[in-house]
């Protein structure tokens, strides 16, 4: 198997310990996120996805268990934990609210500035991050409160990318965007991963996005690790996913039905583009 970027060993998170409201958000999770790959995290609402996200960059300390980045415990001392935040970037759900600077460019540079980089380096990183997220020069000069919702989302994501983290965790980065904006943002993130070799962890409710962009999938159910594997492994066992109140991509469902009706012989199709190709070639074969 490939190298591990960040690993969780028997991690348990409980909220409100010692009160009647004690709740286990994550229960004994052990997983190694493959380095340089995109791992998608899926799970029903309340399955612990967002808790897992804030664990990875050290904002939350697990009640039990160890989290290691490149084999070092991220909670080994306080100073080290503070530095982890630059190495593991975290983009929250609806991150637009974190914008505050006078211009978009300055806001993107906020993280790098906190890292103590030189102004020249900050400018270079801002430009690079803006390019990945598809922000043009005019937007960079505008106030973050004047631009459109989609642009705000890009600016917020660029603000985390500018820190050039080795691991980038994104909680629903495309939620509430139009299809074109969604594609641009997720495409830009894939490009970032390929150019820098960093590890991406993508939390999403959209099985289509996960199927299209991820290499591996982690399935959470009620705070427990339900399944982990490649996209093919996870989506080929549709029945198991239904148990976790989850779904397979719609195109996969279509192919399962087509197979039942003997129109095609494949059901391992997870993206629309690939599905179309398969279908066309199968139909052509039949004509002959």
């Amino acid at each position, binding site marked *: 198997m490939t190298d591990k970027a960040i690993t969780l060993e028997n991690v348990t998170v409980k909220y409100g310990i010692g009160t009647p409201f004690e709740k286990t958000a994550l229960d004994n999770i052990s997983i190694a996120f493959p380095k340089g790959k995109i791992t998608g995290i899926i799970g029903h609402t309340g399955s612990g996805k967002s808790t897992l996200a804030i664990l990875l960059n050290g*904002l939350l300390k697990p009640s039990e268990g160890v989290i290691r980045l490149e084999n070092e415990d991220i909670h080994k001392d306080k100073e080290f934990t503070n530095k982890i935040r630059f190495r593991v970037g*975290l983009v*929250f759900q609806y*991150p637009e*609210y*974190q914008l*505050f600077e006078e211009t978009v460019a300055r806001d993107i540079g906020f993280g790098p500035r906190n890292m103590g980089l030189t102004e020249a380096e900050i400018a270079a990183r801002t430009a690079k991050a803006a390019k990945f997220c598809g922000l043009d020069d005019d937007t960079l000069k505008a106030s973050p409160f004047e631009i459109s919702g989609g642009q705000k989302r890009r600016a917020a994501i660029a603000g*985390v990318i500018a820190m050039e983290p080795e691991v980038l965790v994104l909680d629903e980065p495309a939620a509430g965007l139009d299809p074109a904006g969604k594609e641009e943002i997720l495409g830009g993130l894939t490009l970032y991963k390929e150019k820098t070799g960093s590890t991406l962890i993508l939390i999403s409710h959209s099985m289509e996005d996960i199927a299209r962009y991820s290499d591996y999938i982690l399935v959470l159910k009620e705070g427990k690790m339900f399944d982990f594997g490649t996209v093919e492994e996870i989506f080929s066992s549709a029945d198991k996913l239904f148990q976790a109140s989850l779904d397979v991509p719609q195109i996969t469902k279509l192919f399962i039905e087509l197979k039942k009706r003997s129109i095609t012989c494949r059901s391992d199709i997870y993206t629309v583009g690939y599905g179309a190709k398969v279908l066309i070639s199968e139909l052509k074969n039949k004509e002959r």
Partner: protein
Amino acid sequence: MIKDITIGQFFPGDTLLHRTDPRFKIIILITFLTSVLAAKSTVAFMAVLCSTLILLVLSEINLRILLKSVKPLLFILIFTAVINLFFVKGESMLLHWHFIKIYKEGIVNAVMMVLRLVCLVVGTSVLLSYTTSPLDMTDGLERVLSPLKYIKVPVHEFSMMMTIALRFIPTLVEETDKIISAQKARGVSFDTGGLLKRVRALIPILIPLFYSAIRRAYELAEAMECRLYRGGEGRTRMKVPHVKGSDYIFLFVMLAVCVGIFLLNSYEVPFI
């Protein structure tokens, strides 16, 4: 950390205090606070303590929750006690050590002042904030103050503002938490550096918070206008409060207690 704030905390229940009409509760509270402040003699003060205890029992509020509401006052309580203990002069000196002189009157005063403050807080908490839902409270306040309308005080608008403010406290607390986490993820640290650096670290939190609060205000105003809100004039209510017999009885009992405390002011407990 921010989640510990307990402003306007209401604990639902079904006790006499919960059922009493909010307007009556406000008047009863004023009566009660007057008698707490008016009690001068030790006998009158005992009566105040007793009535506070009775109210506390009636409200069925958990003692631990109540202690939490007194906790922020700890500093003021200790300060009051110390000042009274060392600076009140009387006739019988109990202790004289260098420049420290403690009199019996000082001790009595210190104990009374501290208990008086506790009674004020506990009384307000159990009579009003813990047993009245914020909506009932502002509604009651609006009605109690409604005579002020005749001298052109916008009573309805004030109470609407209060209702909205109370409603948005939890929302803003949650939002602050979210913004703090997001900025921490971008490397802000609030617990290092000098004072100036720490104050500057607040800017990335305050600006988004104000921005979203103002945006919310606009959205709320629009939503209210869409439902044809146009101020208090001619507005009717879905739930019209009905005054019950028990409301009057409660009020008269409290008035009687208040008068009683005034009368007891001329008696002292002989052995103190």
